[in-house]
């Protein structure tokens, strides 16, 4: 046998190769998983996916990646029953698959980080809607006013469970633990006896009750109020209104995740704070070394900085003053986090540029609340410049700025940045036929759908009247194309209402990437010309630049 060090060298080289190819394999798995549910069911897809998982399971540990083999084996097991199935997998089967897949992604990401291999594991597109699907229970009026309501709501992360009759309603509510209850107003009498006590159970968090009704007169609305309804939605149901209502009732994270930068040299505690804030839907960047602070700020453009008072080489309040020197960060909310209990020192720190002071240890709830309120206020102030007031997305200027930053990042860390230009089809016609209020709602629902179906690392901006731009870091043109095409399909299936009139809207889109394009203008132009071809080609499609 050849000498041991030579063997080790060879094995190490093989291991690195394996890791480098892992990203692609996981992308293929992720794509395969998506295809299981949003294409017509074909057991062959499960067979192919199973084979890929089997391959990973059978090889990972040979390269020293035991955890990978185990995760892949779980995935294999979850996929096996589907290989012979003639019907589409149910929610329970998909949940098993998704859990295994997520574990696999987690393990591979950890492996790549450990090996110092950047961007080897792609961030998967949402397999389930962000933050777990929220359940709704629906009991409707006799004459159906829903028309595919459940399908459309699923695009936005809400899973509808329909009760067939008043008797099964209570059982369904118990089983499903919905975040809201949709009830046809006409059904109120039949269910009130059983329903009201349930909703008012002392231990329960009250479930918001949303009434649907064809009658929008005062009498109907009063009835809803008296029954303790949280809201009243006239039918036919305008999906964007319902989604926004559900979002506000269920505290869904705002369209753009809050970005927080934590400057603290205490690693463990910082990690804990990161986990807490991420759990609340925020994007967190950790900085341990003061020398890294300014570059990190420039790159992340956080909504808020959480900073420890005492840092190596300088005091927190000195850094705060430094941050405030920069015109761009003059209004940046800075919250000090410290075990300092001396009031005098705390106040001094605030005078130097801090906005608030939290004493460690800080509870999760307190941390989240303090950050949220500061960020919300700061965003309102900055909002005029950075955000489009209708959709909550980035404004044109902010989008272009962000594109510049993402380009820099792509250049620095490698990987592909994809850019998509979206234009709503025949939008002028929508405004002319159904009115501007309806048109605005269409735009709002598209904005919400994009946010739902893209990842929190993706950037979505309203570029023009009916034009949107999406930036997808670490994503190839093909991946971006597939993701946007799925969204295109979903959007086309949404039924909008203007009074009694029902209509659907589509969009066209063009996709380009860096590389091969190298600057803002060229990549945008390329996406634009692909968009033009999409329009010329008949609209309602997504094309890749060639």
């Amino acid at each position, binding site marked *: *046998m050849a000498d041991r060090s030579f063997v080790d060298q060879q094995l190490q080289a*093989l291991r690195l190769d394996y890791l480098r190819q892992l990203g692609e394999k996981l992308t293929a798995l992720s794509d395969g998983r998506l295809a299981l549910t949003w294409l017509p069911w074909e057991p062959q897809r499960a067979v192919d996916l199973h*084979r890929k998982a089997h*391959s990973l*399971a059978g*090889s*990972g*540990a040979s390269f020293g990646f035991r955890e990978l083999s185990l995760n892949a084996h779980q995935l294999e097991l979850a996929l096996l029953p589907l290989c012979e199935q003639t019907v589409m997998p149910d929610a329970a089967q998909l949940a098993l698959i998704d859990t295994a897949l997520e574990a696999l992604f987690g393990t591979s990401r950890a492996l790549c980080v450990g090996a110092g291999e950047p961007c080897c594991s792609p961030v998967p597109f949402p397999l389930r809607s962000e933050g777990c699907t929220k359940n709704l229970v629906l009991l409707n009026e006799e004459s159906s006013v829903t028309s595919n309501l459940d399908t459309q709501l699923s695009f936005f992360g809400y899973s509808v469970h329909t009760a067939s009759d008043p008797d099964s309603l209570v059982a369904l509510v118990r089983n499903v633990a919905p975040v809201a209850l949709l009830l046809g107003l006409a059904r109120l009498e039949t269910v009130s006896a059983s329903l009201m006590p349930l909703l008012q159970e002392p231990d329960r968090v009250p479930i918001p009750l949303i009434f649907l009704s064809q009658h929008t007169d005062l009498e109907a609305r009063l009835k809803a109020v008296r029954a303790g309804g949280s809201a009243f939605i006239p039918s036919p149901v305008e999906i964007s209104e319902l989604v926004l209502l559900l979002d506000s009732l269920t505290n869904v994270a705002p369209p753009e995740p809050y970005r927080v930068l934590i400057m603290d040299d205490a690693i463990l505690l910082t990690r804990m704070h990161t986990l807490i804030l991420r759990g609340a839907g925020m994007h967190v960047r950790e900085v341990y070394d003061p020398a890294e602070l300014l570059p990190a700020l420039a790159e992340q453009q956080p909504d808020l900085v959480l900073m420890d008072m005492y840092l190596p080489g300088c005091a927190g309040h000195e850094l705060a003053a430094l941050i405030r020197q920069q015109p761009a960060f003059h209004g940046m909310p800075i919250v000090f986090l410290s075990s300092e209990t001396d009031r005098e020192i705390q106040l001094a720190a605030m005078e130097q540029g801090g906005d608030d002071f939290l004493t460690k240890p800080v509870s999760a709830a307190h941390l989240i609340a303090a950050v949220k309120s500061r960020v919300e206020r700061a965003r309102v102030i900055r909002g005029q410049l950075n955000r489009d007031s209708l959709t909550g997305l980035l404004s044109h200027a902010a989008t272009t700025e962000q594109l510049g930053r993402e380009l820099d990042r792509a250049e620095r860390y490698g990987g592909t940045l994809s850019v998509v230009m979206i234009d709503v089809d025949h939008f002028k016609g929508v405004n002319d036929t159904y009115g501007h209020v309806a048109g605005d709602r269409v735009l709002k629902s598209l904005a919400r759908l994009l946010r739902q179906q893209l990842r929190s690392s993706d950037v979505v901006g309203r570029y023009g009247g009916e034009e949107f731009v999406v930036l997808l870091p670490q994503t190839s043109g093909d991946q971006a194309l597939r993701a946007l095409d799925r969204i295109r399909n979903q959007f086309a299936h949404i039924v909008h209402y203007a009074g009694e009139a029902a209509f659907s809207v589509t969009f066209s889109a063009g996709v380009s990437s860096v590389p091969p394009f190298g600057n803002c203008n060229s990549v945008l132009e390329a996406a634009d010309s692909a968009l033009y071809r999409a329009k010329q080609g008949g609209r309602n499609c997504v094309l890749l630049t060639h």
Partner: protein
Amino acid sequence: MNPPPLKRILLVEDDPDIQAVGQLALEVVGGFEIAVCSSGQEALTVAPVFDPELILLDVMMPGLDGPATLRQLRVVAATEHTPVIFLTARSQQHEVNHYIGLGAIDVIAKPFDPMALANLITQIWTAHHG
């Protein structure tokens, strides 16, 4: 009595990663002379020419799977009696018995330890000829 020498091993495996690590384990660590086939079909043409003392055969392959390949190998004079070891992810006892019942001398589980594979094969070889 010493078992006959084991010099040439044919590895039949469609997964390129396992081919790579298998080659390392058998050639570099084990010192065997090896040939690699990506499919059962390829193995049928390569085996008579390479004339291995032992064939390491993956069970789950597209096209001709392991068991089907084994049946075909047995029909060809050159490989009628060549000992075969199956490579498989399934390694419950009744499954192992099943594969042995098909005509293999043993079964090796995937994923295997590349540093231990050569030894394991030598042990199996010795036991088979004992």
